[in-house]
């Protein structure tokens, strides 16, 4: 219901009198975001070849060791090295993010472009459908899918992807509407180009910026959702290390080793912060006239 309501004020696009002379703003966001994401990617890649200890074994003689010494961040209730689990956990977070965002973009973007290019009944119809899907938050969808198909990483990724598709559709649609109102599209049509050409050659390149921003933000949301699902026991199944499940395990030992919740917590926050900052930084670099409200 909300998405099809045209945001009345302020206008989406207009010449900004007070805009900075050029697009050159401090782009600290972009740099910090990239550094944080780089850290996570590095952890994921590194852990594929090497971790300090085996993150999937059980070591009964080394339970709940405090940080320091051989185990830099200590061990958990199964005696597993926390650092190793955190490094390996980056893999699941990134995989879930990539697959979920991929699904969301593949479903949502063409849907939004088609709706945006066909104002009138088709657009209305498609956007009502989109609104209905928006009433099912991604995480709720993941819980339902978990109940129906069994809870595991694959189910979670697909559910999060489908659940994030409507926001891609909304953004693609409003971007498309802006592009369609431009005279170069009129010129293209007037020289006999069909909708397919306009969609691929004019619309897609011009909305790619806002889509990349949306992908970055959705990536952060997917990482967060995977952590929440695993925390609830509806995501990644043991023994694969996952930050969310580490939190769940750690919560049971709060009175014994409270630091155990801190490490996976920091990892989640770094990943989400990284993608949020990247999204903000990219948005700043975009042409301000193509900004679309989320």
């Amino acid at each position, binding site marked *: 219901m909300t998405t099809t309501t045209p945001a009345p004020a302020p206008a989406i696009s207009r010449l900004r009198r007070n805009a900075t002379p050029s697009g050159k703003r401090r782009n600290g966001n972009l740099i910090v975001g990239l550094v944080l994401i780089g850290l996570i990617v590095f952890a994921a890649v590194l852990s594929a070849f090497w971790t300090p200890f085996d993150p999937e074994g059980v070591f009964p003689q080394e339970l709940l060791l405090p940080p320091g010494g051989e185990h830099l961040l200590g061990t958990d209730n199964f005696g597993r090295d926390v650092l190793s689990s955190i490094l390996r956990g980056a893999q699941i977070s990134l995989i879930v993010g990539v697959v979920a965002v991929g699904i969301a973009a593949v479903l949502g973007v063409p849907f939004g472009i088609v709706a945006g290019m066909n104002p009138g009944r088709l657009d209305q119809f498609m956007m009502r459908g989109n609104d209905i899907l928006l009433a099912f938050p991604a995480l709720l969808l993941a819980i339902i899918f978990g109940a129906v198909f069994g809870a595991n990483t694959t189910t979670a990724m697909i559910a999060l992807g489908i659940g994030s598709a409507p926001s891609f559709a909304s953004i693609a649609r409003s971007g498309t509407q802006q592009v369609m109102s431009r*005279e170069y599209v009129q010129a293209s049509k*007037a*020289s*006999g180009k069909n909708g397919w050409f306009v969609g691929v050659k004019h619309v897609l390149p011009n909305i790619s910026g806002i889509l990349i921003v949306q992908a970055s933000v959705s990536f952060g949301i997917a990482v967060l959702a995977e952590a929440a699902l695993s925390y609830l026991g509806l995501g990644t199944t043991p023994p694969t290390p996952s930050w969310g499940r580490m939190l769940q395990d750690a919560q049971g030992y709060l009175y014994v080793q409270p630091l155990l919740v801190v490490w996976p917590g920091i990892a989640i926050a770094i990943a989400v912060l990284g993608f949020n900052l990247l999204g903000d930084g990219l948005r700043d670099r975009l042409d301000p006239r193509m900004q679309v409200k989320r």
Partner: protein
Amino acid sequence: MTTTDSPIEPTLSVRNLTVNSAFAELLHGVSFDIAPGERVGLIGESGSGKSLTATSVMGLLPETLAANGEIHLAGGHGDLVHASESALSQLRGNTMAMVFQEPMTALNPLMRVGAQVAEIMTQHRTVPTGQSAAARAVELLAQVKLPNPAEAALAFPHQLSGGQRQRVMLAMALANDPQLLLCDEPTTALDVTVQAEVLRLIEGLVTERGTSLLFITHDIGVVAEVCERVLVMYKGDIVEDGTVEQVITNPQHPYTKALIAASNLSVVDERGRLHTIATSAITLPTAAELAAALEEPAAPSAPIEPTIATPASASTLDFVIPHQHRTDPDERVIFNEVEGEPLIRVRDLTRQYKRRGGSKLFSKAPVVHGLRGLDFDVAKGQRFGIVGESGSGKSTLMRLMCALDEPTGGSITVSGQELAGAKERDLRDFRSQVQIVFQDPMGSLDPRMKVEQIVAEPLRGVSRDESRERVIAQLESVGLEADVMHRHPHQFSGGQRQRISIARALITRPRVLVADEAVSALDVSVRAQVLNLLSDLVDEYALTLLFVSHDLGVIRHACDTVAVLSDGRIVECGPTDDVYDNPLHPYTQKLVSATPSISELAGRARS
């Protein structure tokens, strides 16, 4: 730059005002005075610094810009450049007031307009109570000639038209009887007839109250209507200062000379071309450089005896354009009827729109008439102008003629091809024969494409090499170098972008060129260049030109025939000069008389 030394303290005195951004100096020491009750125009092209001057006076410069120098208002308020925010707040809206360009966005959309007018009085406590402020607001709305002022006071801005909103802004600005009124392009966004009314209103109210006026505009015709004195700005300097008549009839500075020549679309040289300011649009020279350049004997401002002629009417049409007008709104008149097979034939063309959402839940959606029965022909080689104000249906007509929209009734045939109900695949030939040049130089080129792709877009079934060759040739034909094809549109100025648009339009060798307000977004000097180019190309390619515009001056220059569109109908059509000199229909008469023009004043100079 000098001002008359009068014993009376000037209302506004600006001395050596400079404005700097982090990168450059934007105003280079501007000085001028405005005497009490004097109406001064400040003209210049975009980027000349005229708006910066006004915002500096108001103390409303963006934080990123810094002003230096001195600004004084009569009455000993101290130097405004260095005044505190609270001191300035006391003066704004009270001693000095400002009306802005965009009537659509300058009012708070969530507040009733009466309350917005009343606020300026309660803010400065110029009326004793809120109630009396509201009553006075209604009075003021009556003074700016809003119909039903009491009702209008309760309206929200979106319920008013652009002209009405600008009246509200004016009522607001004058509420506290300021000494000085600043107007920043207040009528630029309005239709000509509305503009004429608002200008008359501003002049009347200001004269009546003895308010000093600083009127900023790019249109020298507007200045001639409202002001007594005019300051000409160029690249951050005031280059000329004199009475309106002096400046128009006997400009001193070379820039002013060139500007006035370029503004006057009825004056052409012996080759039928408009005077242009011979400067590159990318790097404008400074005032001094320009002066030096233009004083050189070879420069185009070297005395050319202007000849009054409308070049297009001398074209090689082999029939006499009839001058017709509509006497009865429902009568069917076929305008500009061509015997035999005209290039374009339009018959009983209608386009209705259904507005979404009726007033009742299940009632039928109301129908809005975009066009209500158009009949006209366009002969091959004719330069056909369509002039109309916003809402007249001219954009709808343009879209129909280019088959970007379907008519709801009637027919359009272009070289025998019927457009109404035609399938896209039948239009293939039509598409290559009819091309458009749009208004917005920013929006008409895809920012993600390179110039080569843009210009080549209309081509189909052409090899890569041939396509490139044709692009290069076409770019050269519009006065651009071949190597621009590797650049993106944002690297070009407005005039250059319009040239690229024209190149794109001509690459398929069309027979018909549709120009949709093609020069309306350009500065005067660039406008003249683009119009000359268009005119040359129409000759060179033997095009039939369909020029849609709100600007009568432009149509008069570019077209041999003009159709006046009002409320979805053609009300008058005929040879351009004839229609302008002897308008038959009342609407055309109103339109012609509302158009600000300097040709009368300038003409006086030559006689």
